[in-house]
């Protein structure tokens, strides 16, 4: 079972200084009241102000080459930055996708022009992306997408729609997976391409999809004869599926699959310590143990990715375990305290509980449902 062994990561001593730098930054922001910790802050916490500050600190695109505005730091250092921001519940949604996914995609498949155009802006925390994958009736089954682009002079004409695109109403661009050749029943993954859609372009309509919380993060995005110039094609025409799958590798095992409800765990622990509640802390010790394990898994995979050894098997596995963990946090909390979750409560704990509970259904759906992930894992194990 070599495929399931994740290496031990001893974080270099230098990362401690970085960590403390971030902690000091966050402390200042918290104390000035410019941010407040919240659950699921990488999806729900949209703050261009904070994103710009983080960009100024050099913490966006930090692994990228300096010529594109990067800081040429290691993936492990980037890991430290992201986990510190998430653990603090800082609102980092604005730049999240661009930093995690779109930037690396350009670096890998983009033209020099694209890299020079997009990456520095992303790194400054000023340019936000969203992802155009799912479509109505093509949820987990991405190969069934129907949005298509037809070749016209100097570019492509895009028609169709995307759904569940988070932040599309606030982002500048969307990397859109679409068909550039007709559907082929024998090769369901052929003929797809990735186009950069300027979300302010004519023909783009963005309709909000409100969540059951009443909040607006997701959208349905419609394309009606949207013109995409040739220079906005990412990578090769027809290679969209393969490129998109590479992209997914970046998003499966990161700290955002473990820490979405960490602010609640922190507040719960604070409360129990304050109450000197030994029994409660016994329960929390189990939660902490799981978190410690998950973090070591996630870190180990980050190291493997840095070494160029991606594994969709263990990445999927960590996402499954991590999101189950996130999802249980509110349930665990309510049994240990006498608080009642309420979104407009004055109690920090009750508020975080409500956030964690109301957002919980999304954790095990987004970026691959539990069932899909487990299928990937099982098949991987059988083949391994």
């Amino acid at each position, binding site marked *: *079972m070599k495929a*399931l*062994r*994740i*290496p*031990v990561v*001893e*974080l270099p001593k230098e990362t*401690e200084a970085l*960590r*403390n730098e971030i*902690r*000091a930054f966050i*402390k200042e922001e918290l104390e000035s009241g410019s941010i407040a910790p919240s659950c699921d802050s990488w999806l729900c916490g949209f703050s261009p102000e904070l994103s710009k500050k983080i960009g100024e600190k050099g913490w966006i695109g930090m692994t990228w080459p300096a010529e594109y505005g990067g800081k040429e730091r290691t993936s492990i250092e980037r890991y430290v930055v992201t*986990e510190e921001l998430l*653990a603090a519940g800082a609102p980092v949604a604005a730049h999240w996708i661009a930093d995690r996914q779109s930037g690396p995609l350009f670096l890998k498949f983009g033209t020099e022009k694209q890299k020079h155009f997009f990456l520095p802006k992303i790194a400054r925390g000023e340019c936000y992306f969203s992802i155009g994958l799912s479509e109505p009736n093509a949820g987990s089954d991405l190969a069934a997408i129907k949005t298509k682009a037809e070749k016209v002079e100097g570019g492509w004409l895009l028609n169709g729609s995307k759904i569940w695109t988070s932040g599309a109403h606030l982002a500048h661009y969307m990397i859109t997976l679409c068909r550039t050749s007709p559907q082929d029943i024998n090769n369901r993954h052929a003929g797809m391409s990735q186009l950069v859609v300027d979300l302010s372009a004519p023909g783009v309509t963005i309709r909000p999809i409100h969540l059951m919380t009443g909040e607006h993060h997701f959208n349905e995005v419609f394309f009606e004869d949207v013109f995409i110039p040739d220079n906005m094609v990412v990578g090769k025409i027809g290679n969209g599926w393969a490129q998109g799958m590479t992209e997914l590798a970046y998003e499966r095992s990161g700290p955002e699959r473990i820490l979405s409800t*960490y602010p609640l*765990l*922190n507040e719960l*622990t*604070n409360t*129990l*310590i*304050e109450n*000197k509640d*030994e029994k409660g*802390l*016994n*329960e*929390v*010790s*189990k939660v*902490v*143990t*799981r*978190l*410690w*394990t*998950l*973090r*070591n*898994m996630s870190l*180990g995979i980050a190291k493997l990715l840095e070494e160029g050894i991606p594994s969709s*098997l*263990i990445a999927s*596995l*960590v996402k*499954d*375990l991590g999101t189950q963990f996130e999802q249980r946090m509110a349930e665990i909390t309510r049994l240990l305290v006498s608080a009642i979750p309420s979104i407009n409560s004055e109690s920090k704990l009750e508020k975080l509980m409500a956030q964690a509970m109301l957002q919980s259904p999304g954790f095990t759906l987004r970026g691959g449902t539990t*069932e899909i*992930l*487990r*299928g*990937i*894992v*099982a*098949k*991987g*194990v*059988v083949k391994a």
Partner: protein
Amino acid sequence: MSEMQEMIMESTEKILKEYSKKEIVNEAENGIWAKELWDNLEAYGMLKVAVPEELMGNGGDQYDAFSILYLIGKYSAPIPLAENYIVNKLLMDLGESVQDEFITISATEHKNLFQIREKDDGWIVSGKAKYVPWARFAQKILVLGETEEDTKLALLPLDNAKIKEGKNLAGEARDEVFFDNVYVEEIKTKSVDIEEQVEKILYTGGLTRSVMMVGALENLLALTKEHISERSQFGRPLYRFQAVQQHMAQLAGEFAATNVAVKNAISSYEKNPVSKEIAFAKLRVNEAIEKVNPIAHQILAAIGFTFEHTLHHSTRRLWSWREEFGKESDWEQIIAKDLMNLNQNELWSLITNVENSSQKVDVK
């Protein structure tokens, strides 16, 4: 892994494949000492790994020792190698040479100290230890005791002790040992701080069990994988059923998680034999069993429930070992004590192992 380590692992695995076969494991559960297995490991120097040569050991480090224990778990090897290593570690840390005989160790409760009194040119020993691993096969036992003067770690010959045989769910010998005013001519003793020794035994023992358990989990996973790959039902291979896949993925997840947990704990052990990582690891591994054993048995169905199959060698050991050297509640309390000492918002420092630069706290 270094070349040296690979060699150790290869040799160990070879010995285990030969001398820890199904039939030998079954016999051992009926009380027969797996002599060839033990003797071969001894001949290859595996009993004194991680002990420096000046203390009569064979060198190597703790990583080597725990790698061997992982295989012990994987092959359900019916021998007390873990206990042997624990005793080695205690002796070694006290600057004592390790011994040629097999020495077992008494339970870790420090309320039950053995009474050791000088008499004539020897000693009179009284005491009782429950659930002592493999006592019936041991030459000596390492106990925590007190003399008139102080508290000691004492190495007692078992010749005149009464032993009441018992076993755990896996059929491993777990005996009761009584010393009822037994006269012993010579005892090796060493003054020690009892709390410290108890803690070291618990943590070292906990780590040995954790590592062996993940080894057993690997076997369980391998058996399950083999089963779903080879068998069919309703005309389809089992691994094609989505329900089977969902089960299998959970097994894989628990294996990957516990594997990382123990590896991190082993890493910490050389620096700190009572590290919080060990507590996390034993707790995490223990918690996996409740999920893993039922799933494996569910997938293997009736066949895996038979004596003929070897799945139960692993599942019964997993059920047994999670009870030993700290069950969940024990480790929870240990971790909770650390939590209780945290300042507000300091949990993250504990998890990341990096204290906030602005505040200093004593985190073990």
